[in-house]
């Protein structure tokens, strides 16, 4: 069924359609509409789930440990400061291999305090063992949340997944969304089954202390699981496409006019739409330009990216985060996998600063002339 809804509602509907059982949630702008919609569903009896009105995001993430360990599919959402308050628990959830799913409405981290969009919250947690998706549209939100559970619960992955959507510039946007049928979602996503649960008939110990003789082995297993996730993400994207007719690139990256492109912009999230619009315009003028939208930031799809870079002369990476004292994290990481490629790095859209078509034009111009290599798009 097609209907015009807010992206936050698409996220909430994705959780509902995934038959989530427990939602420990705490409000923070711009993620608030997600717990609000889920509360509506639960309080109206449309969603058979428990809402836990936790007193902090730290407790939201902690309650996920408890609820998932009873075998209940669970969901939460947050942004910025709330995300940072959860930070301690993020690697504990992944270290315990718990398939939590969380929507992150990306917002700049304070200070100064700022409620607007950039990627400084989620990107700064890239090393914490969560699969990280960055999405571009409301449709992708609902589709991706459902896929997140499929990926997180895969026996070869068993890692938590966060779906990042840009605060305001996506969370609060109304778009036409094709809402999947529950029956079809059920056939894509079977009920959550987990052997390792808190069960008085079969007592097990969870979260023991890992001494130096075991800790590194746990980390190696997590890394292996993350690498496994690459194929699982691709398959989820493909299977979903077969059932619902929609896919997002190969699940890892999405290529726009890249077949013969010489110059490309690589970014994550909604600014890719702006880059695509500019690329379309420049294409009409005969310029060989394209866009690479990175959908899966973790796992980092090295092979898919390298393949996409093959025909490129120059690449511009737009980071919506700055690793202060170093550089844009995406820029640094792309450089590391593309030694022969001329990579330009731009810091863009911090704390909600607009990233405009003119910015995109100037970036493509830089690529063409080869002049500017590093810049903050102010």
């Amino acid at each position, binding site marked *: 069924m097609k209907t015009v809804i807010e992206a936050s509602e698409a996220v909430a509907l994705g959780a509902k359609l995934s038959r989530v*059982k*427990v939602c*420990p949630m705490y409000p923070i702008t711009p993620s608030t509409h997600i717990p609000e919609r889920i509360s509506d569903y639960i309080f109206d009896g449309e969603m*058979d*789930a*428990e809402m*836990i*009105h*936790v*007193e*902090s995001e*730290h*407790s*939201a993430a*902690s*309650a*996920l*440990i*408890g*609820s*998932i*360990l*009873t*075998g*209940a599919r*669970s969901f939460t959402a947050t942004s910025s400061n709330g995300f940072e308050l959860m930070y*301690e*628990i993020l690697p*504990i959830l992944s270290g*315990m291999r718990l398939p939590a799913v969380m929507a992150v409405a990306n917002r700049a981290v304070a200070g100064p305090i700022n409620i607007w969009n950039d990627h400084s919250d989620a990107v700064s947690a890239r090393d914490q063992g969560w699969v990280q998706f960055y999405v571009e549209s409301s449709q992708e939100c609902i589709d991706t949340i459902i896929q997140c559970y499929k990926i997180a619960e895969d026996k070869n992955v068993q890692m938590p997944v966060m779906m990042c959507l840009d605060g305001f510039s996506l969370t609060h946007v109304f778009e036409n969304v094709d809402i999947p049928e529950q029956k079809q979602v059920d056939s894509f996503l079977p009920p959550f089954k987990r052997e390792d649960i*808190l*069960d*008085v008939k*079969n*007592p*097990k*110990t*969870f*979260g*023991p*202390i*890992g*001494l130096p003789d*075991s800790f590194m082995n746990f980390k190696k297993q997590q890394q292996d699981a993350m690498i496994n996730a690459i194929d699982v993400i691709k398959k989820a994207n493909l299977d979903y496409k077969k059932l619902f007719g929609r896919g997002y690139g190969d699940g890892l990256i999405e290529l726009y006019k890249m077949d013969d492109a010489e110059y490309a912009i690589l970014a994550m999230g909604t600014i890719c739409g702006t880059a695509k619009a500019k690329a379309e315009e420049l294409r009409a003028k005969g310029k060989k330009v394209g866009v690479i939208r990175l959908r899966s930031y973790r796992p980092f799809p090295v092979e898919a990216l390298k393949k996409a870079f093959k025909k490129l002369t120059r690449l511009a990476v737009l980071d919506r985060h700055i690793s202060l004292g170093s550089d844009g994290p995406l820029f640094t990481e792309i450089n590391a996998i593309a030694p022969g490629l001329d990579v330009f790095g731009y810091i863009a859209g911090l704390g909600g600063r607009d990233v405009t078509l003119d910015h995109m034009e100037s970036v493509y111009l830089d690529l063409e002339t080869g002049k500017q290599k590093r810049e903050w798009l102010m």
Partner: protein
Amino acid sequence: MKDVKGISYDEYFASGHRACAGCGEALVLRHIMKAAGSNTIVAQATGCMEVVSTPYPQTAWKVPWVHGAFENAAAIASGIDRGLIAQGKREGVNIIAMGGDGASFDIGFGALSGAMERGHKFTYIATDNEAYMNTGVQRSGATFPYASTTTSPDGKKIHGKQEPKKPLAFIVAAHGLNYVASMSPANLFDMKKKVETALSRNHTTFLHAYCVCPVGWHCKSADTMELSRLAIQTRVFPLYEIDNGVLQFNQKVEKPKPVKEYLELQGRFRHVNEEEVEKIQKYVNDRYDFLLSIEGKKAFDVLY
């Protein structure tokens, strides 16, 4: 199987764990679990008990047990409670959340308060050894006044901890819980009854357990039980329960021993002078008088 006095022979916190000789906290845990029985899920905070009981791949726990972090046992228990409810599996299962004094009085207080406000059905047990023992005996909000710890040392200028204990049990009772109690290994029958009562209630309940720490208190390992008894006899750690808002003593002390007898067995009070002993005695008297003043009265509003 139960012995003649009703305390189970069954062990759910098994021997072989790595707690120190004379550890009061391990003793308390063992008896909590005997009373709670096999149908119990435990969520435990970071601290000595978590560390000594689960060096991977070993475990001392014969019941399902989970540890997440230092300050979140109550939040994890909230998730367990609702997770079981959501799947129709809540019936007949006890949930216990446990933390040391640091986890309960200080860093995990917000999570505990939130869980109590929501009224989840589980019992929170604060095992109070009056300092952050796992990290090397640092001061907590539960450290006894004038006790020296590694962060409130008996300095030349300042003699140990300068503040009273945070009255956690009363703060908890003020949340509207219908059962709050203190308990001690010096009275195992009382402890058993309290654990059973707490677990039988339909909402959050709270137990405050007295735990001697020979390493942190600089006392003899062999003195754990003697100190536990003295804490009651000197009125340092009174045994009471607040049932439906009404406080009753469980082991009333009519003729208290001087606090000095309790202090003298512990190196952490070695530095206190006569004047300070007087002050501690007054602190203990005042607290007991306060309990007497509310004894038998509905002193706390009950919401659950």
